[in-house]
């Protein structure tokens, strides 16, 4: 999970608060005026002093690389200049112009990759959320073996990403993979062995792996959320003659709304930025139908050694995610206050 928490900074809105609150010392005895002043000063400054180390680290870890990245995006930072990057010529917004010039090949490829990523993210988040919700609701009632099932459900989330995705890559192999063995040889659902790691099907292969990996997270969070819903509500509803479906719609989902708000946002950001899964599955050159934006940017900078262009694309991605996040929070919060 390390690479999920490191990174753009958009993902960890909680870090800024991690320093905790200074908290005024209670029960300070009122003394003479001079002491009171210094005490008040101390009370005013101390929280900030305590916050300072966290703030410094936050700046260093999150903001500094972002700013450096933004500066890089304004330069022609190709392999000719990586040895002395201060010598790289300033090109103003040219890297951005190239990236968003959708009539030209580079911009068109970026747009294509962006659209694939949007479609992919919507599907992946939707499916993960749906699976997580259904599983959480079914696991709500006590029954024998519930603990075991819960643990099994969480396995994909607990496995190391790299190893898990490698295993999927093996299973998706056309001639020797388990997926085709099951679909073609065992169940006879298909006549021809399809390819999963090249060509159009790679989109569905990637979707499968990502949903497999992220639905347990949705399940975990929603399961925790459901603990907070009072059982009396269901009992009352049952007495009033509400069926299961009605209970889910009228009690469960509304109670989970604040949790869903955060969950969907977090899943969206993770999926949109996911690099490890497509990289392990497809390598440096992903098939066009599964060319997620993070891989695309990697290719545009590390593989072609054009770090200026890669940075410009990254900054654009960052801006897009910021706008979406802000818009999402405004819309969902407003609806919540309107509902309340």
């Amino acid at each position, binding site marked *: 999970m390390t690479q999920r928490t490191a990174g753009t900074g958009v993902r960890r809105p909680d870090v800024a608060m991690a320093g905790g609150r200074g908290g005024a010392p209670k029960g300070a005895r009122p003394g003479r005026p001079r002491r009171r002043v210094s005490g008040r000063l101390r009370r005013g400054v101390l929280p900030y002093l305590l916050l300072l180390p966290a703030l410094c680290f936050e700046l260093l870890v999150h903001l500094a690389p972002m700013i450096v990245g933004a500066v890089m995006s304004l330069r022609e930072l190709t392999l*000719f200049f990586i040895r002395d990057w201060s010598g790289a010529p300033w090109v103003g917004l040219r890297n951005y112009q190239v990236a968003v010039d959708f009539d030209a090949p580079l911009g068109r490829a970026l747009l294509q990759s962006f659209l694939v990523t949007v479609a992919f993210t919507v599907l992946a988040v939707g499916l993960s959320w749906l699976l997580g919700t259904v599983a959480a609701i079914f696991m709500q009632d006590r029954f024998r073996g519930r603990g075991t099932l819960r643990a099994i459900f969480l396995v994909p989330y607990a496995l190391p990403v790299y190893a898990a995705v*490698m295993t999927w890559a093996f299973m998706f192999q056309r001639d020797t993979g388990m997926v085709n063995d099951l679909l073609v040889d065992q169940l006879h659902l298909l006549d021809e062995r399809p*390819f999963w790691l090249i060509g159009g099907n790679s989109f569905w292969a990637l979707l499968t792996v990502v949903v497999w990996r992220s639905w347990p997270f949705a399940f975990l969070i929603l399961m925790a959320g459901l603990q907070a819903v009072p059982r009396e509500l269901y009992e009352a509803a049952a007495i009033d003659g509400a069926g299961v479906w009605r209970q889910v719609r009228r009690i469960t989902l509304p109670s989970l709304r604040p949790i869903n708000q955060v969950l969907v946002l977090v899943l969206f950001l993770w999926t949109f930025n996911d690099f490890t899964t497509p990289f392990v599955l497809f*390598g440096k050159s992903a098939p066009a139908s599964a060319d997620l934006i993070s891989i695309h*940017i990697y290719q545009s900078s590390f593989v072609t050694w054009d770090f*200026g262009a890669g940075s410009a694309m990254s900054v654009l991605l960052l801006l897009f995610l910021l706008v979406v996040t802000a818009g999402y929070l405004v819309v969902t919060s407003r609806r919540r206050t309107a509902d309340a």
Partner: protein
Amino acid sequence: MHTHPLSRLRRTWAATAALIALATASAACGGGTPTGGANDAPKTLTYWASNQGATLEFDKEVLTPELAKFEQQTGIKVKLEVVPWTDLLNRILAATTSGQGPDVLNIGNTWSASLQATGGLVQFDTKTMDAVGGKARFLPSALASAGAPGKDPTAVPLYSLAYGLYYNKKHFADAGIDKPPATWEELIEDGKKLTKGDRHGLAIEGASIPENSHHAFVFGQQYGADFFDAAGKPQFDTPQAVTAVKAYVDLMARDKIAAPGNAEYSANQSLKDFATGKASMLMWQSAATSLANLGMKPDEWGVVPVPLPAQPPPGGKKVTSLVAGINIAIFKSTRNRDGALKFVKFMTSDEEQKTLNKTYKSLPPVLPAQQDPAFSTPDQQTFKQILASSAAPLPMVPQESQFETLVGGALKDLFADAAAGRPITEERVKSKLTAAQQRMGQGG
């Protein structure tokens, strides 16, 4: 080259930014002699070796006694690190950015021009070259793969490799074929005879970016296509390049002598298919050790040069392989330039060249060392001949790595189409190559 450790999976720009931050923190490099390098730490050297053996540990065991020999001769202690291929280029880039690198390092020879362009490596002008024994010691084709044409080499060759056509002797005998193919027409004919049931005539590593780009280059040379013009500008979609790439993909698409499943091979599965008898031919560079590891006995396979077209196409060259191999280079920010030169001289000495190339089953690019009888086995004779007469360096231009990625990727897509049964037409090949060229972008 096919798997990628977690360490590389960082956010693109965050990692880049970190590299750059390192660079600003250590701006105190440079200076020294005109061609680069200072001499204020004469007693130690750091050496990054590339992974040549089966494991990193194996390489350490091979190199440690040699380094001890060097210390005995010169009193210079060499700190060794064997860097896996998946990390090597990124490590070099990071070291170039920060100026905090090794003194001496191995590089894949196809990177020579790109790394030369970064200005991070010591240039081997005549005087520097003389310090390691002089130009004449090295195989000309190998030396041509050590820097951009018309410039001083940026490294010297250390191990040489070449592509050859491996064939399964028993399969050939069983099918009544008395000699390995010398032309593509013969290869296709033989391939069709050999393709039966689960067995195919040829194994292809169809999703491997480096393999695809290497074959595209060799086919290109044979059909008169240069992927870069004389000025170093990319020209991926010339009619010759289209014909060449189509000829390669057609081995699967039209002639069907390679299994469709090959289109997703990128982890050396084709090597395994050849070793286990699922395929009868394979184009590979110095595969002896790998084949033996996979259980094949040396007398079961033969190796000959990769075929040529029966009728030489106009402008076509007699090229059957790229000059593959490893070069050894000196980092400009070294603090022991003289020691580094001594070490390069030591590593390219006749004695060391024989020992190391014997162990790694490669060929010495150092001419006197090639005379050793160990390099006169039938396999090695073939490769010696290929390197001497029909091997050409990959384009020595700064954008070489982009060429590999983009053209290699285009071929991967074409193989995917071929495997799915879509027809591979000239228009289709051209549009793929045009798209690849357009993505070369502005930078270099």
